[in-house]
């Protein structure tokens, strides 16, 4: 079963070799070089949830920045030095509040705000999350250990090749005096997808 996207067994061996053959042919034919491929891999590696957390923590402490981020994510990211590629799909930041909790999914495949937080986790690409989250979001939240009050409205947003979403989690109570750097540590990958909440300072110090 390949549901969490993990490659294994005979298929993996076959496709690993097939991919190598395709790359070797592209290089022989002068279409690209191994250096192009490795440079791209390093570039993709350079983005991680820490980048998104940094931006969102800044939005927590600066309400004007938050307003700009929610209105036009690309320009607001550029302010912090994140220059998304021209070809990157449109990015929207969705704010979680006392009343509304957003969750992102890509029911069709695996569209994800890679340009700012890197590659998606395996489960995000798996069939179970993609099938179930639109039908039973609260059940999925529970599976991730996330409890919401009954009166909070849950919105599930479907991503596409052209539109990507980053969730701005709610700032936890009791974090008023914290530095931006420490606040960023509360913002997890799961909280930026919306299957989790931001951590509390207690959770961070316990981990």
């Amino acid at each position: 079963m390949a549901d969490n996207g993990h490659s294994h067994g005979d298929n993996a061996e076959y496709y690993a070799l097939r991919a190598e053959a395709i790359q070797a042919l592209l290089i022989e034919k002068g279409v690209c070089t191994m250096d192009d491929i490795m440079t791209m891999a390093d570039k993709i590696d350079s983005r991680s949830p820490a980048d998104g957390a940094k931006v969102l923590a800044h939005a927590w402490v600066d309400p004007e920045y938050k307003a700009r981020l929610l209105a036009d994510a690309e320009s607001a990211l550029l302010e912090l030095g994140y220059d998304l590629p021209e070809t990157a799909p449109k990015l929207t930041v969705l704010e979680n509040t006392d009343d509304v909790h957003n969750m992102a999914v890509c029911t069709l495949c695996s569209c994800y705000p890679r340009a700012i937080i890197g590659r998606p986790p395996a489960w995000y690409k798996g069939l179970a999350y993609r099938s179930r989250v639109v039908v039973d979001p609260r059940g999925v939240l529970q599976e991730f250990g996330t409890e919401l009050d009954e009166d909070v409205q849950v919105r599930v947003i479907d991503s596409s090749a052209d539109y990507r979403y980053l969730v701005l989690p709610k700032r936890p109570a009791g974090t008023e005096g914290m530095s931006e750097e420490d606040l960023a540590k509360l913002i997890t990958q799961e909280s930026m997808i919306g299957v989790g909440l931001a951590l509390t300072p207690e959770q961070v110090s316990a981990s």
Partner: protein
Amino acid sequence: MPKVHDRGGWPNEDPIDQSEHEMEEWERKVDALNGVLGDLGLKTSDQLRRAIESMDLATYESLAYYEKWTAAMEMLLVEQGVMTTAEIDAKMETLKQGQA
């Protein structure tokens, strides 16, 4: 029934497998190659999706993520005449012999 990739609401009672695995180096390269081919104008996200979405159900469900990407990239490169399936088969044989 919806198409093979259109999973929203598809009957599914499986628990969500939250385990993460270290990416294999070949998967990392396939991920990167996708970006390189995009920059070269040899594929768009929509083309890659179309190739993945054209798979039959059994293939779609049995292949892991980067296995699907590999199959889809092959489809697009062959379609555009960049290489042939026979060339890929032959290169695979050569690589296999190199490994032995």
